[in-house]
């Protein structure tokens, strides 16, 4: 079930380094929200703070609130492991588990958590997830082969299948197409459009056309200088951002007059 996320006054730190400052934003359910901005401005950092992956890094911490349907994800009694079961993530580089077959990779969310499930149900789930990720037809005859033996684009779709197999409420994608050819990219974009019926999707991308094509909302991050924290400069509907943004910096970045 898709859920909305409200972020307020979020400061994100690496040790003493303030990487992202004062983000307040609402992410709508059943839609795609794109985050754009120059390299190093904190898009990945922000994205990872939404499912508490940020704190995996030693010394990394967060101040502020991230509220998903009324539940503060950073409340003291919330287990980050639970949060991650509800907010899935796809990484920039495809990272299937090398020791597992294609089938096991998709089933990893179930198997690794020792959830009991009947074989037939698991089969159905794997098929549904692989179909969801547009990969079923390519791999249905070799589900028992290693996941690392697929092409890069197929591996990325395998990772998407793995992420949606745990039925998260929200799906975070960090530059999911940056290593892919245009055809795989298109396949993944189509996929996102299908998936947004069921999930809330947040995607980081360097590809303006991609942001314009797939997303309903766009957030533009920027930083004023090296060593300065990144900020969310503008958050608006994608249409507005790409036609008539409120901020000069956004317009400069989008039209390539940046820096």
């Amino acid at each position, binding site marked *: 079930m898709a859920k909305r996320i409200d972020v307020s006054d979020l400061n994100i730190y690496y040790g003493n380094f303030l990487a992202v400052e004062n983000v307040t934003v609402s992410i709508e359910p059943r839609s795609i929200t794109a985050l754009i901005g120059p390299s190093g401005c904190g898009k990945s950092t922000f994205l990872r703070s939404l*499912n508490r*992956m940020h704190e*995996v890094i*030693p010394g990394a911490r967060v101040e502020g609130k991230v509220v998903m349907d009324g539940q503060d994800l950073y409340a003291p009694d919330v287990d980050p*492991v*639970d*949060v*991650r*079961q*509800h907010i*899935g*993530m796809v*990484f920039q*580089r495809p*990272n*299937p*588990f*090398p*020791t597992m077959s294609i089938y096991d990779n998709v089933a*990893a*969310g179930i*198997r*690794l*958590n*020792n959830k009991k499930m009947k074989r037939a149900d698991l089969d159905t789930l794997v098929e549904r997830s692989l179909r969801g990720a547009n990969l079923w037809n390519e791999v249905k005859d070799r589900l028992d*082969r*290693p996941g*690392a*033996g*697929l092409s890069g684009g197929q591996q990325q779709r395998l*990772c998407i299948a*793995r*992420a949606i197999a*745990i039925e998260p409420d929200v799906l975070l994608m960090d530059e999911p197409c940056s290593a892919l050819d245009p055809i795989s990219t298109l396949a993944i974009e189509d996929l996102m459009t299908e998936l947004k019926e069921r999930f809330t999707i947040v995607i980081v991308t360097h590809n303006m056309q991609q942001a314009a094509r797939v997303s309903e909302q766009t957030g533009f991050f920027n930083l004023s200088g090296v060593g300065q924290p990144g900020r969310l400069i503008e958050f608006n509907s994608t249409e507005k951002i790409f036609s008539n943004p409120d901020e000069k910096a956004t317009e400069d970045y989008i039209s390539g007059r940046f820096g």
Partner: protein
Amino acid sequence: MSQTSTTPAPATGQAPAPIGQQRGHLPRWAPWASFAGAAVLVVLLDLAFGLNIALYVLYTVVLGTVGVYALTRLVEGARKATDRLVTCLVVSAFGLAMVPLVSLVYEVVARGIERLDGEFFGYSLVGVVGEGGGAYHAIMGTLVVTALTALISVPIGLLTAIYLVEYGRGRLKQAITFLVDVMTGIPSIVAGLFAYALFALFFGPGVRLGIMGAVALSVLMIPVVVRSAEEVLKLVPNELREASYALGVPKWRTIVKVVVPTAIAGLGTGVTLAVARVIGETAPLLVTLGIVNGTNFDPFDGRMATLPVYAYYQLTQPGVPPQFAIDRAWTAALVLIMLVMGLNVVARLISRFFAPKTGR
């Protein structure tokens, strides 16, 4: 040597000189011919002065190398000549390194093969004076003690490595790393004396037990396991851990089900090589196990024989006539070498069969 004929120019008039055109070209057998020539020359020298085998080889190699260098320099130019010179040097260094290894294996095999028979593997030394007898008790002792050592060291070593890589932070991690480094350098006799002193506290002086040997060997084996396992675990990409966390898998389960399976080939190889490292230790076993003529399977009760200690005593206290015991010592050494080589093969097989598969 004549210049190689140039290829006919293309029909369309003047062609620029092709890249990589060589001045000349030595046939492939030329370096070998140079060494053969050197060998012949040295034979002549030999006839004149009389040389021993070591000098013979040395002169041949030096003369041959000089010949190859000079010849290549004349025909193919300086760069190729340097290339050949360095090749000659590297191959010679390799040959030099192989000399002790090959001669050791040759010596042990030649002397040990004599008694490499059924009796050696089937009988102990009980009631043997002079001819016959075997090392059944010592082989079994070595296997029991080594297995026990592995049983102690592998869990401690692996868990320590997992702590260092996955959990360790700050001071404690530094301290453990430092202590492991120190342990790596402990002389083996010190490990033996440590185990002896430890058990003597409880059982009084003069105690000899199989488990003492295992404790002493563990002191030597644990740091080796920690080091190798640490290196292997560090090689597991962080992305896999993050992929697992992102699926809502807790850290400990990520380690058990993702990190360790990914590294299992390297871990297995490391453990096997660590076993190979301690299986031939003599000094600590000398002070903790002693020697005995009969078979003892119980590491908690009395002395046990082991192969290295067996070889030591057969050689140093052979009895009269000494030859039979000395033969047994060589065969024990041979069996030990075979065990170590076997373990190395096992290590290779482990890394071959457990490595993550990417086959399409």
